[in-house]
């Protein structure tokens, strides 16, 4: 049922509207660094880089109805690959080598982890994710000769693209292009048979199995897609701070992506994008406005969002407020129907 309504929306006129919205937003993001101070640009860059891992959580949530706490493993892998190859044991800082390398490593690790993590569901899946993340964290933390332990690795060189050294501004545009590319890729994936199969699995396991869907394989594939997203973002995150520490592997860090996805709204394709911007921006602003009280404020905001609108998230609130004006725009696109 979800599939029909969705393909029904693939009408050319809608695509035009969406295309316009996408182009406008991208243009804004491309022009903004010319007008704001550097720290705002760094912050926007961080938001942009949070989008792919949040999409990972979103895919696992919206397609499989599971909570994915283990994104920080892949962020950490990507970051440490950048830190080793472009910093500690300098080999290259060429993004065209580092990004695919991180992609391959993330896919490999996700494949292996997926074999046993993805066999579990619900609460057990969530805790398993946390446990594996913590195991990685303590490994990185304890191998201090190689990883620098809690001090991390600080002398990461600036990245280069096609052999040209990139400045901070250049890195911003690379981040913009990469996250935009990943968003488009995710859109493609969510409109493919793959996502239908996953929805079938989360709908009814036995039925899905009986019509010949390789249940475990498909689940593992979803985990791999999520991890690959985070791995790519990890490389760019490491370059944007020229520093990597074991906190990138901490499970609290992974939990932030879950919160971002929930805040954004897991019913909408734009949810992760909205969530990344709202979560990073809100956390930073609130914690600088009320340094003593920010935990209470953020906690209450998240709790209230979850209680009142649940999976609709901020996107849902915005849609309700400006329902008519946005009706035909990007926000309208639902990527799944919960069948309840």
């Amino acid at each position, binding site marked *: 049922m979800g599939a029909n309504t969705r393909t029904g929306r693939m009408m050319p006129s809608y695509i035009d509207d969406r295309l316009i919205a996408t182009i406008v937003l991208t243009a804004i993001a491309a022009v903004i660094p010319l007008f704001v*101070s550097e720290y705002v640009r760094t912050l926007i860059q961080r938001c942009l880089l949070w989008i792919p891992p949040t999409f990972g959580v979103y895919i696992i949530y919206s397609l499989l109805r599971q909570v994915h706490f283990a994104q920080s493993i892949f962020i950490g892998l990507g970051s440490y690959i950048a830190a080793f190859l472009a910093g500690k044991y300098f080999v290259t800082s060429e993004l065209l080598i580092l990004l695919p390398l991180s992609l391959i490593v993330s896919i490999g690790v996700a494949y292996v982890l997926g074999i046993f993590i993805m066999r579990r569901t619900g609460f057990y899946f969530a805790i398993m994710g946390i446990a594996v993340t913590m195991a990685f964290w303590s490994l990185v933390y304890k191998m201090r000769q190689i990883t620098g332990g809690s001090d991390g690795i600080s002398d990461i060189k600036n990245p280069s693209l096609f052999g040209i050294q990139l400045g901070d501004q250049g890195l911003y545009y690379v981040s913009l292009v990469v996250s935009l590319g990943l968003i488009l890729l995710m859109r493609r994936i969510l409109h493919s048979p793959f996502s239908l199969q996953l929805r079938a699995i989360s709908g009814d396991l036995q039925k899905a199995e009986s019509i010949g869907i390789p249940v475990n394989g498909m689940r593992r594939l979803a985990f791999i897609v999520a991890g690959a997203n985070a791995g790519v973002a990890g490389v760019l995150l490491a370059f944007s701070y*020229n520093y990597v520490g074991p906190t990138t592997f901490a499970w609290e860090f992974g939990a932030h992506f879950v919160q971002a996805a929930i805040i954004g709204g897991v019913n909408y394709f734009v949810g992760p994008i909205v969530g990344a911007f709202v979560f990073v921006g809100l956390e930073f602003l609130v*914690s600088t406005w009320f340094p003593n009280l920010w935990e209470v404020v953020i906690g209450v905001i998240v709790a209230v969002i979850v209680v009142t609108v649940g999976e609709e998230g901020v996107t849902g609130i915005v849609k309700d407020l400006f329902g008519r004006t946005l009706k035909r725009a990007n926000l309208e696109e639902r990527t799944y129907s919960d069948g309840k």
Partner: protein
Amino acid sequence: MVMRRTRTLVVILTVVMLLMGAVGGAAGGEIPSGPIKIGFAVPMSGTATSLAPDAGINAEIAVEYINKYEGGILGRPVKAYIYDTKGDPQTAVDVFGKLIENDGVEAVLGCLSSGTGLAIAPRVESKWKIPTLLLEATTMQMFTTAVPNPKYVFRIGPDDVMQSITHVKAVLGKKPDLKTIALGAPDYEWGHDVVSSFTKILKQLRPDVEVVYTFFHPFGEASPNFAAYITELMQRKPDVYVGYSWGTDGVAWHNQARAMGLYSRIPLIFDVFSGTAKGQLATEGVLGETRAGNCMFPPHALGYPNSKLAPMILERVGALPTYGMGVHMLTGMLYLKAAYEKAYDLTGQYPTPEMLAKTIDGLSIIGPCGITSMINHQSTAPGMAVGKLHQREDGLWIMEDMLIVPDYLRIVPPWMTVDEFIGKLGEIGQ
């Protein structure tokens, strides 16, 4: 023709700019009105918080002290911008950006853990160019590999070699006949760093002393159980135990070790940071360092500035003095005040960040730990004195029988590497 006209234009423009520069320079002599903005980037949430308790409140206290008792800086009141780094290096970078680019602070005090310091320091040197006083971030990596030739980055906490020299000398001085020693530290870079430099220096000065047990306990768990380490320690029966646990770790260590009778079984215990908490019972006779929990106020400095600072901390925090946070904040503020005033006196101009940074290096001030100097971007105190904890009749814990190691025995000269200096320690004298 065109060439000549361009050249004339260039000459005129240069003259105009020089004139404007002179005017601007003359205008710079005046002290700007309004408060002077100082940024603080400290951990106020997350794991690091329990280890740097009430860092935000201590920053407020230091600023309040400067405004109330020292008349501000150059007559201007200080306005504090206090932000939370969450103990996370990436957040720290963003927070520093906001402080420097948005709020326009003139100097920053911040960064407790080495990780945040290492993320910040290269950016400060290359991009922000604002005097930055790191509170601790004391691993050797900071001024050896991360920023080898610092211009704007300073460090208030003692580096690991400096403090280890004090600690080894104190242990050898208080218990000359020791044969065996045990060391315990939190399991993170600083802990490993400090234990290895302690062992190295001890090997140099007293090769016959045997290190019978070294352990690293989990760092910052907030509710740790140390019983396994304590029983193991009692089995090994060392003559001396040197413990580097700090913050909540230190508090829990002290409670548990005391309850299991460690303090009465080992002849000499050196609790470097002897934990601080509200309601904490310290132990008489245990050695502590200047940053140590209940005794940051060594008797020789009970007058200025501590007689004013201690009541303020007691009133706001309820315990003295929360792992040296008060010490570091006020030391940093006093350095800044002295630097501003010296630079202004010497040049007659309101100091630029570069002038300020140049002035901070080489300054001497009287801070909460007594006379302290900034030498090669490294503050010499705290970490220079060790003494026995003793509770006075008024309830304040102080240090007795203080052993103060002079600065020339602790600071690595620029022409030596750390290892060379440690190798020569025996020759320099006891």
